């Protein structure tokens, strides 16, 4: 039962990574930039939800909605102010700017909420249920993360495969110039991608804080980096890749913690990335597109 329990916890943590990784991978796919401030959007989502519930006494569902709205707007604003002016700048400039935005968000949170960790109340309660005559206990939070991940994955897949807006995002990610010739407004598409990615980050933030209820200005940093690893592991730019990478990473991390060493768990996670990239440089589901003449 130990293994099964770890597997479920790993899949749950991995689901959170996957939802964050989707934001990384979509923004990379469309804007060809690594938004290292993405992890800090998670933290903002966590704090928004925390404030709504603890200070304003709002119903958890509304608090989650509020944090999605706040993060979506935050994503759009950050893109407009920080990244849009750099659209034609070298990618290193954009990367450094993203790191700057990350520090800005962390320090803004420090200013607003202070450095004391806040104790986050799970939005879905602390209930759990047992299976196999009490041998296996699953937290509701754990289950909700997995379900949320599945819902997000299905919704995003339908969005990008079936809807006109989703298809236009794929077109932009493949060829910006050709997409413009079709009449697609690339700036609007990039803005929309940031909105979706940041809205998902809010959901991930709420789930993360529900599962690990300590909220600090740096809460988003490590999960953000791990989700980035997950996105690269799965093949950056690929939506199913982000899902696969996230879940694998969560499972590897939990197993490493349980069976190898909890101090070494993060090192093992990053080690896996290095090994995968040595064997498959484009990531597990990353595609190398060949041009036809």
């Amino acid at each position, binding site marked *: 039962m130990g293994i099964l329990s770890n597997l479920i916890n790993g899949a749950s943590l991995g689901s959170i990574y996957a939802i964050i990784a989707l934001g990384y991978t979509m923004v990379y796919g469309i804007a060809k930039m690594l938004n290292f401030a993405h992890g800090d959007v998670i933290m903002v989502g966590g704090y928004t939800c925390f404030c709504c519930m603890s200070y304003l006494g709002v119903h958890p569902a509304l608090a989650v909605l509020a944090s999605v709205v706040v993060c979506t707007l935050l994503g759009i604003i950050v893109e407009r102010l920080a990244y849009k002016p750099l659209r034609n700048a070298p990618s290193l400039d954009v990367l450094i700017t993203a790191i700057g935005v990350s520090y800005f968000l962390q320090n803004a949170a420090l200013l607003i909420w202070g450095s004391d960790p806040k104790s986050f109340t799970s939005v879905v309660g602390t209930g759990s249920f047992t299976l196999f005559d009490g041998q296996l206990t699953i937290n509701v939070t754990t289950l909700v993360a997995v379900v949320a991940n599945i819902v997000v994955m299905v919704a995003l897949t339908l969005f990008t495969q079936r809807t006109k807006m989703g*298809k236009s995002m794929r077109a932009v990610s*493949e060829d910006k110039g050709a997409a*413009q*010739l*079709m*009449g697609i407004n690339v700036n609007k598409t990039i803005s929309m991608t940031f909105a979706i990615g940041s809205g998902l980050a809010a959901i991930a933030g709420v789930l993360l804080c529900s599962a690990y209820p300590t909220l600090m200005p740096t809460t988003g940093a490590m999960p953000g980096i791990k989700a980035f690893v997950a996105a690269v592991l799965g093949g950056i730019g690929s939506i199913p890749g982000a899902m696969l990478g996230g879940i694998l990473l969560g499972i590897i991390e939990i197993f490493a913690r349980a069976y190898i060493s909890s101090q070494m768990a993060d090192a093992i996670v990053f080690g896996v990335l290095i090994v995968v990239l040595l064997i498959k440089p484009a990531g597990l589901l990353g595609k190398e597109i060949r041009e036809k003449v």
Partner: protein
Amino acid sequence: MALLTVSDLHVYYGSIHAIKGVGFEVNEGEIVTLIGANGAGKSTTLNTVAGLLRPRKGEITFDGESLVGVPAHQMIRRGIALCPEGRRVFLQMSVKDNLAMGAFTRDPAEARETMERVYERFPRLHERRHQSAGTLSGGEQQMLAMGRALMGKPRLIMLDEPSMGLAPILVQEIFDIIRALNEGGTTVLLVEQNASMALSIADRAYVLDTGNVTMDGDADDLAHDPRVRDAYLGG
């Protein structure tokens, strides 16, 4: 008045002066071709008209309105389509989705109607409508790129090197299609390195050389001009 008028166009890539005062006209219903050697500025000219590049100086008017400063994504709404060099179809998307992208700005019901017309013109695209564009041959990809451009129902279609990399039999097929499109009422601005093919279907032509128009006139006349024959038609 001409449908498209370009005058005294200057375009730079960084500090490189790529287009040095190019001017030409395309009248409604015509096939006009820009011919010239590699690097003469043909593609740059088309990309500038399409809004992908900004001119530093000069005027571009389409149907009486200035196009300078109009973003590329608004061109198709104004009736201008560019079928870019190297085709640039969306390789990971299906043929049908590629065509649907071409009608991004249009009403879905009207777009479906246009898609039927495109499938009639390119039956092979209909056969392969569910395949991803990356699995098509070069000639089929060119047809898809043209079909996709037509999905926006342009008044002017600009074709950049449609014959590039294609087998001779396919080149003939592509040029037959261009002629048919034109007979259907679409004005064509054609850029080609295959000057003899281009001149054979064009009404008028402009010869570009290192960013300047050096000759222009009736396509038949140019095809028989000794200077053109020596420089661009292989003697």
